């Protein structure tokens, strides 16, 4: 009896810790006063201002496009790399896996500064492309990390059987191997997408003028105070993700 209550209470506590900041954020997005310390009255003013604010909207588009593109390209490169690595002999494979793990173990700031220095040394102007390249670079290890286990689980003989039956290597890849590793590829894609959305340090060091992702845009506002339009934006993003998750879970539940 008591045990059940304690369990529920504990879960409730965890949920409160996780979501309290978000709910406060959502509440503040309707606050007429800019300050978090004072409730100035209910308003939708900040939502209106948000859609009229060019620089925040640009930052949003840039963030989404970079996340999408870098995740896509990293997934393609990462999947191909995983296949190659899994076909290597023991030593080269061990070396490559170690090299692949370094960006993940490194602090972001090391990756960020070294990329910036590389671009400067190559006289490559910092801008949108430098951010995109950087994001692809740090995303590839995550894709490889997701795809490799799936490749290990493959039955090596199905590929050979397909070749024996007359399939070309590419046809065999798309029809036999890819469907089996697809969950890993998808996981890699979403992981890369999230890491890219989340990133601040690397973007901060490799971006050029006028390129801003949401994280760097919010950072520039810290000195004068974060605009409530950002609270409105965060609320909308939270609701979007929530709806998406509810939809996906509904579909999965129906399937079963």
């Amino acid at each position: 009896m008591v045990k059940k209550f304690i369990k529920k209470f504990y879960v409730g506590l965890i949920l409160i810790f996780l979501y309290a900041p978000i709910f406060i954020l959502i509440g503040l997005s309707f606050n007429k006063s800019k300050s978090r310390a004072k409730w100035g009255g209910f308003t939708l003013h900040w939502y209106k201002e948000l859609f009229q604010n060019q620089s925040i909207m640009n930052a949003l588009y840039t963030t989404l496009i970079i996340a999408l593109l870098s995740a896509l390209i990293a997934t393609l490169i990462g999947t191909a790399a995983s296949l190659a690595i899994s076909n290597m002999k023991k030593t080269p494979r061990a070396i490559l896996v170690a090299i692949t793990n370094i960006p993940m173990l490194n602090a972001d700031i090391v990756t960020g500064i070294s990329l910036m220095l590389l671009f400067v040394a190559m006289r490559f102007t910092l801008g949108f492309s430098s951010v995109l390249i950087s994001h692809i670079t740090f995303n590839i290890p995550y894709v490889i990390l997701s795809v490799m286990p799936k490749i290990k689980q493959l039955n090596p003989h199905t590929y050979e059987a397909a070749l024996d039956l007359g399939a070309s290597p590419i046809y065999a890849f798309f029809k036999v191997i890819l469907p089996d590793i697809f969950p890993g590829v998808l996981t890699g894609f979403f992981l890369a997408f999230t890491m890219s959305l989340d990133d601040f340090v690397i973007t901060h060091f490799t971006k050029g003028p006028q390129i801003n992702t949401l994280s760097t845009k919010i950072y520039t506002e810290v000195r004068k105070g974060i605009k409530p339009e950002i609270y409105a934006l965060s609320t909308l993003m939270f609701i979007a993700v929530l709806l998406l998750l509810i939809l996906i879970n509904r579909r999965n539940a129906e399937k079963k």
Partner: protein
Amino acid sequence: MKKLFALSTLLMLTIAVLSACSNKEGEKVFVYNWGEYIDEDVIALFEEETGIQVIYEEFEQNEDMYPKIESGAVNYDVVCPSDYMVQKMIENDLVQEINFDNIPNFKYIDSTYLESASEFDPGNKYSVPYTWGTVGILYNKTKVDEPVDSWDIIFDEKYQGEILMIDSVRDAFAIALKYLGYDLNTTNEAELEEAKALLKKQYPLVQAYVVDQVRDKMIGDEAALGVIYSGEAIYTSRENPNLEYVVPKEGSNVWIDAWVIPKNSKNKENAEAFINFMCDPEIALKNFEYITYSTPNFGAWELIEDEEVKNSPVAFPSQEVLDRCTAYRYLGEEMESNYIQKWNEVKGE
């Protein structure tokens, strides 16, 4: 699978084509400024009037901006550092002299601030002041019933747990040094040790060391006393009428953010046109109303309609107040490290 592959290739090609198309020809100016430090309409007005496209970029701290200029990663044309950082850039040969023939609106900058600015830019050859302010005490009238006119109140044990101290090494030492009667640019070891001891004594009385969180905390009546920049004081007093701002009698720091032109700028004349536009009284007024930080532009000051703001001792203090405020000088790498070391010793307990 094939469809996905084809779709993604198509997407990539479209993006590539679009990004190639967006390379506009024409005059440009690269501006690097603090976040939320300009009225965005002003940029559009500038582009309309001069036909020069503004590529606008923001930074959060002087120390974030400096390595970007130093490494030459991007060639900015106009940058807005703070006083001591202007001096550091001058001494490291990172900025070039401004051709004031191209900035006729410079005459609207009040000479008082040019005098303060010559502390870090002797002869005013490299910089044009953009905003300025003081550092002072913001106090809550309902929690403090004695007159507030001296720094001694933030070192007073009576207010233990009610004091918000500024989390910035130069500002903290400036307060301690001014209170002890010393120059806030001092390099005298004995004076610095005395200041350090005073700050250490204050440590147990402080509720929190903050920079911008001081705003919300004071508005929320969470503390009686806070150290704050004058620009923020206007905003907080509007939100909470119980708050008052004062520059103590021992004196304080006057800070100035100014426009400079880096040496590796590629569009010097466009940069000067931009600075000239910023010094236009109407434009400076627009910026003042958005940023709420004081403007050094007396042409703009004359255009202010709200009498309360125009004569506000917070936004536009009297000459007597300004006389007891000093601007920061850059003290060199070794002395800066010395200050930081002492500050760490204060907070390290």
